């Protein structure tokens, strides 16, 4: 009788132990979390395209190994972002960085923006190109040319270029200062230091562009 009891107890113990080991090996917890997380990015973006696209045949662990950002998708609070822009626009209504959706721009103003973009980017690319060329030809101790024949903009064009630079730089300075005012306490020392260095440099550049703007003649060449 005692032997039989012992046998039953031992068998029960073995069954429980095996079940426990099997449970540990096959516990579904991790996989379930992973599958839920796998779906998160697209729930958040409410994408409506390709609704019939089947899920890839890839184990979630494999997905997260390749693309770790999918495991902890960035949480976006659109309402908070809207609030940020509205408050910022109240303080700096003419800031270059305010998205058009917060501004009441006329068709004419939008066309003007497109025109400015084209003039600015054209001259920006030409100056970058000239810099490459001059760098290639540079000789130590010899100054660059007094005038660049390859690029000879009209005063009006050059004014648009510098005005764009001034507006952008001024706005960038406002944006960073506003950020430091509001979030400065939460920033790490590296970002604070970089921001301070950048602001110092940008303010110098801004002064220079403002001076150059004043040198541009009013009339055509």
């Amino acid at each position: 009788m005692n032997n039989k009891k012992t046998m039953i107890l031992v068998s029960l113990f073995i069954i429980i132990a095996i079940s426990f080991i099997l449970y540990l090996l096959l516990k579904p917890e991790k996989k379930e979390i992973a599958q839920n997380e796998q779906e998160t990015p697209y729930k958040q973006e409410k994408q409506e395209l390709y609704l019939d696209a089947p899920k890839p045949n890839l184990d979630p662990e494999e997905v997260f190994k390749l693309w770790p950002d999918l495991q902890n998708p960035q949480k976006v609070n659109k309402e908070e972002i809207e609030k940020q822009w509205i408050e910022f626009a109240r303080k700096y209504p003419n800031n270059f960085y305010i998205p058009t959706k917060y501004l009441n721009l006329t068709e004419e103003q939008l066309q003007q923006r497109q025109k400015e973009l084209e003039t600015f980017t054209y001259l920006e690319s030409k100056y970058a190109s000239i810099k490459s060329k001059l760098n290639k030809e540079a000789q130590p101790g010899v100054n660059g040319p007094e005038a660049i024949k390859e690029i000879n903009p009209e005063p009006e064009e050059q004014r648009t270029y510098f005005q764009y630079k001034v507006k952008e730089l001024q706005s960038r300075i406002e944006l960073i200062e506003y950020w430091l005012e509001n979030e400065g306490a939460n920033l790490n020392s590296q970002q604070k230091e970089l921001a301070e260095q950048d602001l110092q440099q940008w303010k110098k550049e801004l002064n220079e562009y403002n001076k150059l703007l004043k040198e541009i003649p009013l009339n055509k060449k």
Partner: protein
Amino acid sequence: MFRKPGVMGDSLSQGFYGVIVEKKTQDWAYPVLVVKQANSSVIYNELKGPYVNLEDVLKGNCGVFCIASSIIGGNQKTYDVPTHAGITGANFTSALKTSGECEDITATKWVKEWYWKNWYTYTYRWVQVPDCQKPDKFHQLGLRKAGTQMQIMEKIKPSFVFAALGQNHVLCTALHTSLDCLDEPRFRRDFNEVMLRLSRIDTLKGGIIFTVPNVTAIAYLEPYRDPQGRANYSGLKPFYRTSVSNPNQVLDANEVQQIKQFLTMVNNEIRNKAAAYNFALADAELIFDDIRENGRPIRAPNGWSPGNAGANWPLLNKPGLFSLDGVHPNRYGHAVLANELIKAINQKYRFNIPLIDEYAAWYYDSLNRNPVDLKRFLTENIIGQAISWLINVFT
């Protein structure tokens, strides 16, 4: 061979994505994917900018503080000596010369050094000292105090190296719509030196380089025909221009031809060096031409397909490999590039590194799944600044 991989490279390897480098995009960059598939790993200084993630901004997911923070940039995590040293804007020249602290470690300047010539003469002599100018932020934050890309490889002594740095010797032509930046002697000289110094690393068992895709076929440029039929006003213009008022605003047929000739020289040199140094070679030029011509099939295991991907940023029902700068790949594009590298490595060294599931890469690519029609946003001022940023980083 993948015991200790090392990475030299440019924006493609660092994960620059319309127009930012941040941890998420660094993690999906092609060398990181290849190394993971080979069951190995690389470490890199993690960035949080600069400049801005246009996708996030245009989708309204990045507000005032997010934009400000990413414009300034910074490090999320750092390492004393990273094994992945790829840096946005780099080429073979900057891989040799630019560290995280000095724009050109070989630059010197003359300064007066005052000294006692003898007990009664206090005088000076001119001496040459290092002239350390601060580099751009990608180098500052990406390399920090570890040295130049080349010095890092010499320090870490990799067993396998990614060394594709040819792109930025040619890409500037597309961004500047000009040939001024082409410099064949510099390319040849610095490519030679990089390969020579890599060959002297005694631990190195192999590596991979790839040819430069046709930069005149990237999404940044689009065909333009002058309404008056003038040949020098027709050709390829940047996507954001509505018209052309000056021949300098396009790459005309003659200029495109000259770029192609330069590209042929660059790619022949890359093919020759790969053979000479026993490196694997991925022919990205050929692969990109094929994608441009035929698209890249995207197919789920059950046969479902969103269509072939093209050499464009994704649009409605038009999948694409590019990010919103029209120059750099998106998550899906990096998986495609990584697979082409894996195929080349497998073929060269008889390995069996598994390919990445390209359908999964497309499925999880937020820009492909939820495209942004960039041309609808050209009146957003941030676009102009993003373009300016791009033009000046890739000079």
